[in-house]
């Protein structure tokens, strides 16, 4: 089977700093990682390939430096990596991103065989929209399965797949047909370490690099800023609260600090003590 996994290189969010004057993200020196949610999809794809045979192609859209994340994906065992990079893609919102990625998936299909499953991350940690996966599904008319906790099984002969999907208050067990677009839930499959052989192969591998034209995108007005219906008009830092937290003195004995702490809370909020008593009593 042929599986395409869409990944994104993102700044390691724990280390993002915002410029205090310009309110822009200071990206310099911030390490990048593969979006952590994508790794659950990548591992699921690798397991399916290991079981059913075939190939896993990883795809990303981004600046040339996104090569680093693609090589990382190869060290985990992906068979092929495609980088979609072009200045026409700059400033893409989710609609424009899903357009470009869907064209690249079509081109991947034409080059190495039509994918049976396209995976994407549930969401990214920088944009957090969860919209690109569904966008690709719609544009390629793939059956859309998001928030999947488990792929129960794939029947390649029958072209069907059974999955478990996280829904409100429970799990939906679904049967769908291939080809499908799947986003995996966190915790569904921890990424493997990758073998030494894969690491060697990844270091030497030649990545497939496509610009818009090479990916078969004739109409670049559907890409980047021009292809994005949303407009970011203002970017600003959250307003700090006017006063800082009131410090409660730390005393030598934790018990004394705790009692002073509780007294401070109860005097700050009338009614809190009564509320807590009722809650504690389970009323």
């Amino acid at each position: 089977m042929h599986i395409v996994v869409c990944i994104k290189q993102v700044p390691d969010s724990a280390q993002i700093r915002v410029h205090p004057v310009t309110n822009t993200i200071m990206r310099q020196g911030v390490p990048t990682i593969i979006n952590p949610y994508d790794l659950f999809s990548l591992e699921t794809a690798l397991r399916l390939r290991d079981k059913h045979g075939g190939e896993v192609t990883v795809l990303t859209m981004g600046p040339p430096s996104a090569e680093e994340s693609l090589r990382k994906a190869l060290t985990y065992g992906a068979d092929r990596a495609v980088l979609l990079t072009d200045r026409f893609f700059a400033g893409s919102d989710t609609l424009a991103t899903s357009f470009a990625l869907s064209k690249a998936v079509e081109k991947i299909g034409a080059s190495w065989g039509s994918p049976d499953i396209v995976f994407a991350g549930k969401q990214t940690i920088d944009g957090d929209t969860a919209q690109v996966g569904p966008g690709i599904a719609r544009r390629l008319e793939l059956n859309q399965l998001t928030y999947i906790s488990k792929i129960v099984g794939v029947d390649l002969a029958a072209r069907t797949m059974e999955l478990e999907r996280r829904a409100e208050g429970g799990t939906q067990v679904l049967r769908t047909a291939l080809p499908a677009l799947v986003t995996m839930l966190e915790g569904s499959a921890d990424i493997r370490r990758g073998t030494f052989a894969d690491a060697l192969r990844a270091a030497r591998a030649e990545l497939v690099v496509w610009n818009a034209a090479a990916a078969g995108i004739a109409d670049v007005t559907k890409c980047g800023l021009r292809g994005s219906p949303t407009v970011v008009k203002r970017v600003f830092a959250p307003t700090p609260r006017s006063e800082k937290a009131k410090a409660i003195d730390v005393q030598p004995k934790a018990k004394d600090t705790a009692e002073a702490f509780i007294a401070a809370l109860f005097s700050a909020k009338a009614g809190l003590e009564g509320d807590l008593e009722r809650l504690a009593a389970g009323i």
Partner: protein
Amino acid sequence: MADAPPPAAAGNRAAMKKELPEKFRSYKHVWVMVELERGEVHPVSWELLGEARKLADKLGVEVAGVVLGAPNAGTREATQQAFEFGADVVYLVENPILADYRNESFTRTLTELVNTYQPEILLLGATNLGRDLAGSVATTLLTGLTADCTELNVDADKSLAATRPTFGGSLLCTIYTLNFRPQMATIRPRVMAMPARQPGRVGRVVEHAVDLKEESLVTKVLSFLPDRSSQKSNLAFADVVVAGGLGLQSAENLQLVRALAGVLGGEWGCSRPCVQKGWAPADRQIGQTGKTIRPKLYIAAGISGAIQHRVGVEGADLIVAINTDKNAPILDFAHFAVATDAIRFLPALTEAFRARLSHHSRDRLVG
């Protein structure tokens, strides 16, 4: 928004100008997708109706709810409730195929309703259902969609101004869909306040029939496995929440947080890094990508308070931080702080609360 372009880039953009094409000028009214699943409406739908009411009043238009479901599966009750929470109109589609949420059937139905009745704004909850549906409906309609908004407003030119945190919550950005309709947005549960219910309030029902046949749907629901009640966390709706962060240093120490929550009759949670480290399940995560909480008392132990956490807890009446770092960002939005090691302080605090509240609750089981 996958990427918020920097403001300089955004300023250069032709699409910044509002030139609404003729075909969209008839689009009017504010819609809310009412999430009805297995007979129950997700409360976020009512929160959104409250918000839609405010937007519609500013625009001088109506509020409509969209109710999709199988006949006699709570659709009529949901319709009446939608009126009581502020809808003027309900678009009601009843069809056995809509009994369970499936992307294909719901996307087709909602897209058809939008194309037929033409709303200018369409709001959905940022739940699994809402996000799954919003993404595919927006792509089908080729319109803009802003995820996880924390504030909605109407500009002088009547455009929807949708503000959301970006880059993990380090910044906020205000996003517009100027030249496409409807303007779509998702909002997470508990971000907007629940509106007051007006019992007996009525409105207009527009019933719409869709031509959907089970044979034409590819994805089949084989079964539904409800969560065991013990697995459910009531975090979003709890009156007291105690949460732990990386400052607790290990998964085992989250037990200290659970113990205090137990004594207080509250719920426990954690910050995003704890979930990423596998210390706690994802449904315990508080913050922008986890749960938004609105408790009376929120105690954060060993949580530095990155903005993505802050946006999830700001609705709390009283926020207290236990953190050794006197420069932690949480001190910018907490009301009280104790600069001490949470691992040593939490057991003392648990004991002190237990003693203080004990005349009502002796020997309460914890954890």
